């Protein structure tokens, strides 16, 4: 930890109708030093994010996006949501957020217990940053930071054209919060593995693809988004 200012900590909103899974994701996120809020439905998530149907329809006619702070009480840096939920699914929530001028810039990650390729594709095409298969692990949560940092960077002055860059395959690297430029440039990461290894916390050795029943597709950096 050791973060001096409260606003330098990332805040994640986790959405899942299962209490056990909410407990799990909360622990995973807190272990990674994120601030966490959990809700049990998509509609509560939208409520927390300050989404208002009327305001969104008024704003949708404008091309420029409205300042995200207008509607939100609390800044949320990432939303991680279960796919299968009664009422509003994770996909529905994702869609509503992407249609909202105030919420579309918040990165969204989808979790699902079912490995359905068409579902995964649909979510990524709709703008989800990642798709995690449940049960979610620490190694998955370690992939979240670049997405959150990309959004924070957009609000700051920066020499590098960070907004137009997508994070590449970063599974093997733990990201140091201060190294904004190196985070987003794969080549630099490959040249500097040792410095990121120093920041590794509680992570097991690479587990991707080791266990036969966890054939998890890798979809990092393959988002099909039009900005």
């Amino acid at each position, binding site marked *: 930890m050791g973060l001096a200012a409260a606003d330098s900590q990332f805040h994640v909103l986790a959405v899942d109708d*299962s*209490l*056990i*899974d909410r*407990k*799990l994701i909360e*622990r*995973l996120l807190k*272990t990674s030093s994120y601030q966490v809020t959990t809700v049990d439905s998509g509609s509560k998530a939208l409520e927390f994010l300050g989404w208002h149907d009327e305001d969104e329809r008024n704003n949708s006619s404008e091309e420029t996006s409205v300042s995200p702070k207008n509607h939100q009480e609390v800044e949320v840096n990432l939303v991680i949501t279960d796919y*299968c939920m009664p009422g509003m699914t994770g996909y529905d929530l994702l869609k509503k957020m992407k249609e909202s001028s105030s919420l579309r810039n918040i990165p969204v990650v989808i979790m699902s*217990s079912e490995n359905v390729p068409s579902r995964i594709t649909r979510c990524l095409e709709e703008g989800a940053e990642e798709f995690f298969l*449940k*049960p979610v*692990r*620490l190694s998955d949560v370690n992939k979240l930071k670049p997405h959150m940092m990309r959004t924070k960077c957009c609000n700051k002055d920066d020499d590098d054209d960070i907004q137009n860059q997508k994070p590449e395959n970063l599974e093997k690297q733990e990201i140091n919060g201060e190294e904004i430029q190196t985070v987003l440039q794969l080549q630099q990461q490959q040249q500097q593995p040792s410095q990121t290894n120093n920041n590794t916390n*509680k992570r*097991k050795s690479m*587990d991707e693809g080791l*266990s036969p029943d966890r054939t998890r597709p890798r979809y990092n950096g393959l988002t099909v988004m039009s900005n």
Partner: protein
Amino acid sequence: MEVDQLQRTFHDYHASLFNEGFLDEQFVQLQQLQDESNPGFVVEVVSLFFEDSERLLNDLSKALDQENVDFRKIDAHVHQLKGSSSSIGAQRVRNACIAFRNFCDERNIEACLKCLQQVRQEYLLVKTKLETLLRLEQQIVAAGGASPM
């Protein structure tokens, strides 16, 4: 002395649960999330699992007892149980749920009843195992040892 023996017993018992397929890698993930600042994490999640499962097993029993069986509802319950057992690493319960869902698709009441029995059996087994494991952990801590979780 006593602590060492308890630790050994715990270690062996823990290993057997994995060897016999009751628990899988996900349970290890849970253990890794427990630390000094969250010493009760595993107990908490396991307790939630017990409550959740018992509720779902009751609901399933009732649903299969109806005159007009609602298979979609049954499937939804089993899906939930599959999810929670998967989240804590209760492998055999999860596998029994997967089999159950296949029979739901076929709308086969007899088979579903057998599956329910199977799931309940696996659940009761893993419940006993987990309670034993957690009790051992408790004993070690009470005897002054560090939690082996």
